[in-house]
């Protein structure tokens, strides 16, 4: 009898296997991202008229418009830099293009605030290359756009390059028989890479609109600062802060709609067929000039890092590192690796679900996007409200809260990255396995994971780096005595000796470089075709 019940139960579970797996992954997103936001939603009625009056005032809307305009300007500049560079890196005989890609891409893996600090060392009034004019420009909207565009343009470059590298060569080869390189680039390559470009633009826009540190440092008022003023300012008003998040919801939904329309529907290429088999487009006589231009852009992105290193070296900051660095790098790396592993696992299930339009996956994907564009300070206060309870005290008072916070904010990185990888892989293997009777879990582990292993590993690495560069979420609730390195840099920045702060920033740069290098070694290599 018991055996029969067991068999029936097993059959029922297997029938609902897909739902159960999706639910488990969904529960992670709901617990980490949605619950804190829902908890804060309950604060609005308590805040009453004050919360509503925030939205009836003119100033927050003006700040929102300014933030949207700044983000649009950053996105436009990033596209202007990233599209040509991506094309040059992926499809031409530009000298040293892999090294160029690495140098250019690296700043995007660092906290933008840290780069602003580097630009200040360069172009502040007393900076290495600074004067009154450069300082005025830096501490203005122009400075914010320039710093963020240089920080985020590698997102466009890299997505363009990856899309073009993964593209089936046949169209391009056919075009090259008759057309000149410029025509091939503008009529074949760029239209084919449009979905990747759209995704990159959306990512850059989302990163820019939620960025607080750079704008605050460069004294430009933006919308996230208005939210932050209600959480980090004189009066603690989470209800009002959350009321200010309401206008961001249409922005998140618009981004999601655009992403679905421009990216999801336009799956453009099938990777792994003949992606790498073409000869690069020759730049001919333009090669030296284009190489000089491209390397200048890459070098410009790395300049603030050089400035930080120089400041640290001149002031003896490196010698004082052991005294000030503490355990922060270990906390950073440990929590980032654990969080990224969960994010990749959730991404595998929900990213695949979103790509194949499975029920529920799209809603959870949308929630993750909302958690990403919600100002980090709001999410942080929500996390405190949810997790600081006697029952969860052990988690809240330990590094586990950092892991939870990273998952809450960056689950979207895993979901979207895996979704874009799955979208480009052939669906027929999954269909064949399903026809042969393989259930969801088996297909996930035996088909989807191995086929997309490289992409999923890249998503994991991307998630590690996002967690490493986080500052704004963790600063609100980091466990006492266990702060991640970016938090330590910015708490020490308060009256700390500038060379020591610069040396800590350089240590963060090195830590990120080492993690990336180790990650690249761990990511499986592409099989030779």
């Amino acid at each position: 009898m018991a055996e029969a019940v067991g068999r029936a139960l097993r059959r029922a579970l297997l029938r609902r296997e897909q739902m159960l797996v999706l639910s488990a992954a969904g529960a992670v997103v709901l617990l980490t991202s949605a619950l804190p936001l829902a908890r804060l939603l309950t604060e609005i009625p308590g805040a009453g008229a004050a919360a509503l009056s925030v939205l009836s005032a003119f100033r927050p809307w003006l700040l929102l418009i300014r933030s949207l305009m700044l983000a649009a300007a950053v996105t436009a500049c990033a596209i202007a830099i990233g599209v040509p560079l991506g094309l040059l890196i992926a499809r031409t005989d530009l000298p040293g293009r892999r090294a160029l890609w690495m140098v250019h891409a690296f700043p995007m893996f660092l906290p933008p605030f840290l780069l602003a600090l580097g630009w200040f060392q360069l172009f502040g009034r007393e900076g290495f290359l600074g004067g009154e004019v450069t300082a005025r420009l830096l501490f203005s909207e122009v400075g914010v756009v320039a710093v963020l565009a240089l920080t985020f343009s590698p997102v466009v470059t890299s997505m363009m390059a990856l899309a073009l590298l993964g593209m089936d060569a046949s169209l391009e080869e056919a075009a090259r028989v008759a057309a000149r390189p410029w025509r091939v680039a503008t009529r074949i390559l760029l239209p084919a890479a449009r979905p990747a470009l759209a995704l990159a633009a959306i990512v850059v826009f989302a990163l820019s609109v939620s960025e607080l540190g750079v704008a605050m440092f460069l004294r430009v008022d933006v919308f996230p600062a208005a939210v932050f003023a209600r959480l980090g300012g004189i009066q603690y008003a989470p209800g009002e802060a959350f009321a200010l998040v309401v206008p961001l919801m249409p922005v998140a939904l618009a981004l999601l709609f655009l992403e679905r329309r421009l990216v999801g529907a336009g799956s453009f290429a099938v990777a792994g067929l003949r992606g790498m088999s073409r000869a690069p487009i020759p730049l001919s006589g333009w090669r030296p000039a284009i190489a000089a231009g491209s390397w200048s852009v890459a070098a410009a992105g790395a300049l603030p890092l050089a400035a930080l290193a120089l400041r640290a070296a001149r002031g003896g900051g490196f010698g004082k590192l052991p005294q000030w660095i503490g355990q922060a790098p270990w906390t950073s790396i440990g929590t980032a690796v654990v969080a990224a592993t969960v994010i990749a696992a959730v991404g595998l299930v929900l990213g695949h679900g979103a790509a194949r339009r499975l029920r529920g996956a799209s809603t959870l994907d949308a929630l993750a996007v909302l958690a990403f564009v919600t100002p980090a300070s709001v999410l942080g206060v929500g996390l405190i409200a949810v997790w600081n309870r006697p029952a969860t005290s052990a988690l809240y008072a330990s590094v586990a809260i950092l892991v939870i916070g990273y998952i809450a904010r960056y689950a979207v990185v895993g979901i979207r990255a895996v979704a874009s990888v799955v979208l480009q892989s052939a669906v027929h293997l999954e269909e064949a396995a399903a026809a042969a009777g393989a259930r969801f879990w088996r297909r996930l582990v035996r088909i989807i994971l191995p086929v997309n292993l490289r992409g999923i590993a890249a998503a994991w690495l991307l998630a590690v780096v996002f967690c490493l560069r986080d500052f704004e979420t963790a600063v609100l609730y980091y466990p006492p005595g266990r702060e991640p390195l970016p938090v330590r840099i910015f708490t020490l920045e308060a009256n700390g000796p500038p060379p020591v702060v610069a040396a800590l920033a350089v240590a963060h740069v090195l830590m990120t470089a080492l993690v990336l290098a180790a990650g690249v070694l761990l990511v499986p290599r592409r099989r030779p075709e």
Partner: protein
Amino acid sequence: MKRIVLLAALLLLNPACKRTAQEVVVYTSVDQVFSEPIFKEFERKSGITVRAVFDTEETKSTGVLNRLIAESQHPQADVFWANDPVRPFLLVKRSLAQPYLSPSAADIPATFRAPDGTWTDFAARARVLLVNKKRVSPAEMPRSIRDLSNPRWKGQTAIANPLFGTTTMHIAALFTMWGEEQARAFLTALRANNARIVSSNGEVKRLVATGETAFGLADTDDGFEAVKEGAPVEVVYPDQEGMGALVMPTSTVLVKGGPHPETGRKLVDYLLTPDVERRMAESAAHMPLRPDVPVPPGLKRVSDIKAMQVDYARVATDMERIEPWLRQWVGL
């Protein structure tokens, strides 16, 4: 995947994750660069591990305070070491302060101790004008904070964002001293005079030290640091012929319901010793409240300057009251 999990496990088993039986959790808005060495010394002397949460320059004074309030249902901190004497009143008001009369505070002047022991002040700073000597001649040296709104210096002065840090307390103290009308008029005049509203006092120091602005309002420790770094900066204690300079002692509070009350009391006792006041004077240019604690050259004692006579409890009330107006004034 196995390699990844193994790596993560190794990293999380690192020494940073070790928990000790004897520990104390402290939240502080005193600069980490000054407070952390004091915590290390306490660890060395007592064998108790200090786990600290620090503020960033931008959220100074308010960040950890708001965290304390956010965590009030289940406090995580044992001790709050505030960088000004007003924030503790906000904790007292919310019944988050545990009365404790520390034996170490017996020789601190009575005006700097709550009779019920909910807060105790020590090592103080004052609000000062930092003046760039290359940009301002001795004859034109500002003497009052009202000089910030003097049209002679239009566009050449700076103050930190008054929603954060000690500037909040200073502005609130002006409302307490001058009354609503005068204080608002002063701030409106500041705006009209294009005074720069910057992210922090540290930023004011940077701007004055580099000559980007002629002078600005900051704290004594900012001035002391600027002079120590060799910047052409003069520290002016404002309104010495008038209402006096605002003096801001740091303050300790034992948090009610904190997880380690016993070690919390030990840390409070240690912080209130004359030795810590001396160390704060030497490393952070904080003026000792005790008359017999030695000070380094160049640093004044509280008794050497004319201090603004203001009731900190009223300042705390005014600070909360003016907040919406202040936010409008800042533009957030």
